[in-house]
């Protein structure tokens, strides 16, 4: 019991410090306890969200692998393990240096500017009268497969996607607090499309918009 308790305690300590637990052959019942420990650790609010740095690093590394695979089509499309080592190495080095950015830490200056979605073959459609869109107000619309909002953000009228950049739920306009709320997992976005609190999320993509004859128009696919 004592040895097994020691072993399990080392695993729990590793989990609580976000480290890899030690390797050892486990009896089935012991393994079940390890599995329960992992589930309990993951239930800690916010513990199971990836850091922005990890998401960005992995995307960069996958991009390099995709480019390599496209440059050498005759060698098959399977990616190499070298990328894995590079990503893990970067994560490990960051952890040692204590610079892993927590998900709760927002670094808006590091976030790329929101992209603007422009259809290859688009048409302008009027969505709402400019006069009906006072500062702090918004209008949800749906057209040609585009789910969007037209908002008046402090006098600046713009259109943006209504799809949450977390997991694709449709956002709701929260007029009282002048923001866009996700009904699925609690994410919120400012009326300029930037994520509030959850700094690891991307901003909402903008939609091309303009004002014509006192109407706000949005460009959607033809």
């Amino acid at each position, binding site marked *: 019991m004592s040895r097994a308790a020691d072993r399990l305690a080392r695993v729990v300590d590793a989990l609580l410090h976000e480290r890899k637990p030690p390797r050892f052959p486990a009896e089935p019942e012991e393994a*079940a306890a390890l599995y329960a420990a*992992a589930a309990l650790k993951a239930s800690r609010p916010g513990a199971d969200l990836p850091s922005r740095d990890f998401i960005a690093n992995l*995307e960069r590394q996958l991009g390099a692998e995709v480019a390599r695979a496209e440059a050498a089509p005759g060698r098959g*499309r*399977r990616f190499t393990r070298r990328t894995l080592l590079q990503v893990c190495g970067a994560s490990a080095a960051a952890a040692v240096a204590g610079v892993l950015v927590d998900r709760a830490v927002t670094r808006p200056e590091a976030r790329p500017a929101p992209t603007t979605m422009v259809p290859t073959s688009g048409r302008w459609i009027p969505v709402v009268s400019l006069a009906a869109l006072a500062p702090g107000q918004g209008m949800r619309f749906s057209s040609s497969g585009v789910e969007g909002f037209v908002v008046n953000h402090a006098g600046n009228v713009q259109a943006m996607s209504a799809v949450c950049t977390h997991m694709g739920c449709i956002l709701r306009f929260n007029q009282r607090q002048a923001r866009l709320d996700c009904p699925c997992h609690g994410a919120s976005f400012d009326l300029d499309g930037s994520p509030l609190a959850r700094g690891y999320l991307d901003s909402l993509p903008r939609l091309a918009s303009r004002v014509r004859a006192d109407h706000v128009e949005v460009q959607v696919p033809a």
Partner: protein
Amino acid sequence: MSDEQPALSIVGGNPAPSPFGATVTDGWEGVYRATVILVYRYIYARVGNRADAEDLTTQVYLRALPRLRLSAAIEEIRSYLVATARTVLADHWRDRYDVRVDALEESIATPEIRRSSPHDEEAGVRRAGAILGALPDNYRRVLELRFLRGYSLRETAAELKITVSNAKVMQHRALRRAAALPEELP
């Protein structure tokens, strides 16, 4: 609006959540951004630490991306990624602890986590609450202090007014008991 213009509907009220995927069809980057949090959380719930979760998430994409049909529906892509994650996790548990994860999942009480949609992010939290609620007080207390409040064993022992050795043994018994809880839990 003329007949030639595309249909426009102004949406009022509170539309139901929808996995609308217009922004995830932008090549592999769009697929990656739309799925990476889901994949990571799925894995994290089964390994319980960031270092392993990052390694295994990386393995999932390295394995899956060359085989993904990017034009597939996003739900189909998510299912494929979760299936890949299961394979990667099985390899991980065999390598780390010399156990078969499929046998493990059969033998332990995580039915909701196993059955639930990977999009149900609250399933693990509900399950953990049910596990803790079903344990005797002293077992529940030691696991709450360790896992939810992040206490060290020494701090836990001090809080419970027991020795560190006893806290360690109690933690061991509590986790064994938690793993053996019946599947009827929510």
